[in-house]
């Protein structure tokens, strides 16, 4: 095991899968020699000069290239620079790659669609309302699509490798504020399958379901609360589609209380699905109403003064946990 950052984990996953499979292609704006706007693809163009490609600023062009290549059986790994741009590329996720196999009536013959769209999520860089969002909620109601939303270097690397080896369209959400975060990663080859929610911390009093940066904040909150004798279980769904309902529900059945933590605005948040599934499957185990600790229902402000208040903090999570504990 080595300690590497999330950015390195992603970079390694890409490099390793490209080495294993000569038909993996990486492309997007400035992902080549520039190494990507956040440095994540640094060095890949040197290693694989013909398979790492800069594109013009054309998100639908990028997605179309990805879709067509994937239909032909290539493994296409496009990047959009900010996950906020999912609005521009939406049709391809919503109506194209997620539906083509079904509309064609063609499972599984030949018509694979191995496509992994990398999309950096998140606030914290005072980049204002159009460059700071977590956009997973927009994709939750799209059958045929898979959504990865990892939080640690181990999960980033393992899930990205799993996604690239798969034959289905995946949106792989990275979080900008996690790129520099370190964690242990094995030396040998491994993958992390989807639909494998991970209990990041075991506890008995309350379950916190959290994603990406919020997993780390929840763990910090749990540590503080442990000093007060409160035992928090932190569950990271890792993928939202497919969702590992079993692990999530059994944690809540055990603790009887749940706090849902996600950075995006609370109304219509992706974790609404998770929360409702808990109510559907564990109603009678719930000792308190489920509680969401999510972003406010307004665009993300530029100024650091307001952005800091906008983003869910460790303290917000602590307050939420105390609230469900009554």
């Amino acid at each position: 095991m080595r300690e590497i950052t999330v950015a390195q984990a992603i970079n390694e996953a890409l490099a390793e899968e490209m080495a294993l499979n000569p038909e993996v292609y990486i492309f997007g704006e400035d992902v080549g020699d520039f190494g990507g706007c956040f440095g994540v693809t640094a060095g890949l163009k040197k290693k694989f000069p013909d398979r790492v490609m800069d594109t013009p600023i054309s998100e639908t062009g990028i997605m179309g290239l990805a879709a067509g290549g994937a239909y032909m059986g290539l493994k296409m790994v496009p990047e959009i620079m900010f996950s906020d741009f999912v609005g521009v590329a939406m049709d391809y996720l919503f109506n194209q790659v997620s539906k083509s196999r079904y509309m064609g009536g063609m499972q599984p013959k030949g018509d694979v669609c191995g496509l992994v769209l990398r999309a950096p999520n998140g606030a914290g860089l005072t980049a204002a309302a159009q460059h700071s969002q977590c956009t997973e909620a927009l994709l939750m109601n799209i059958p045929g699509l898979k959504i990865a939303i990892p939080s640690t270097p181990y999960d980033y690397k393992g899930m990205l490798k799993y996604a690239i080896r798969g034959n289905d369209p995946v949106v792989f959400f990275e979080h900008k504020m996690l790129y520099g975060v370190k964690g242990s990663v094995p030396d040998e080859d491994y993958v992390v399958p989807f639909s494998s929610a991970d209990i990041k911390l075991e506890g008995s009093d309350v379950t916190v379901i959290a994603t990406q940066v919020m997993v780390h904040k929840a763990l910090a909150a749990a540590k503080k609360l442990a000093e007060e004798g409160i035992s928090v279980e932190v569950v990271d769904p890792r993928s939202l589609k497919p969702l590992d309902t079993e692990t999530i529900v059994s944690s809540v059945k055990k603790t009887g209380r749940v706090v849902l933590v996600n950075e995006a605005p609370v109304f219509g948040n992706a974790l609404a699905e998770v929360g409702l599934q808990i109510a559907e499957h564990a109603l009678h185990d719930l000792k308190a109403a489920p509680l969401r600790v999510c972003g406010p229902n307004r665009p993300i402000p530029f100024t650091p003064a307001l952005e800091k208040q906008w983003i869910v903090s460790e303290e917000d999570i602590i307050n939420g946990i105390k609230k469900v504990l009554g």
Partner: protein
Amino acid sequence: MKVSNDDLIKLYGNMWLIRMFEQRAADLFAKGVLPGFIHLGVGQEAFMAGTHYSIKPGDSIGTSHREHGLLLLLGITPGALMAELYGKATGSNKGKGGSMHACLPEKGALGCNGILGSAQTIINGYGFAHKVRKTGNIAVTIFGDGAANRGDVHEGMNLASVMNLPVVFIIVDNGYGISMSSKNSSVVTDLSARAAGYGMPGVTADGNDVLAVIEATSEAFKRAREGGGPSVVEFKTYRHRGHFEGDPTPYRSKEELEMWMKKDPILRLEKILLDRNVINEKQMKDIKAEQLAIVDDAQKFAEVSPYPEGPEGYGDVFYKYEGRD
């Protein structure tokens, strides 16, 4: 481009196959047998047959909603296509796609995209695959005068040009996008003029003259095959029927339709066949009858085929069903 007499005869048969198939679909739709929306290519057979003439096995061809007829030439059997229009389990797509999404990727028949414009970026992925796999094949995308105004087309053309992909963009100006005259959706007369903005060749040809179509496509396809990059080919043609079946076409005049009926691509090919003494009227009749029989059989096949049953609807979402949604 010299087209042999045998090929002329084949083109003639192909055009009749499309015409007969489409007219049958119109009849069946009017009778309430065919469900959904259906867009027919009657009047546009020349550009379909001519384009088909220029493609080679292994090429990838994406059609629009009005060219399911072309899929017949590409390799979907008339029975499988008719069954798809019926929504039967024996359809090319097991009934899941219908007219708009019928396809047969093994034969390079990519089918249509219900979202106008999107296919014109996706085609680059096919072209890219041909390029990196050095197949020598090309990718062709067909779309209308209306669809040409979608932004994705712009991104698709520019990317194809910048990446020098073996892709050909075929624009079919049939006068209208539903009710909007192509004269009102763009101020330029020839949409092929847009190619210059991406530094690629663009030509406009008579889409009702199958020989002109062959000329234009064979040149563009050859360029793409030889590494010369993408180009735009525009065909001027006309749809004899409404936008969809049931469209009362209040937006166009009887005179306009009549004028175009005189330019009927099948009549024009017949004239060539007779002028060149390729075949006589009797032989023409026989060819027509042959195609009619194929369409009759297709209909029969579709009629007796079963509808898909429940569990079938569950498949084909993911590569392997993992027991979760």
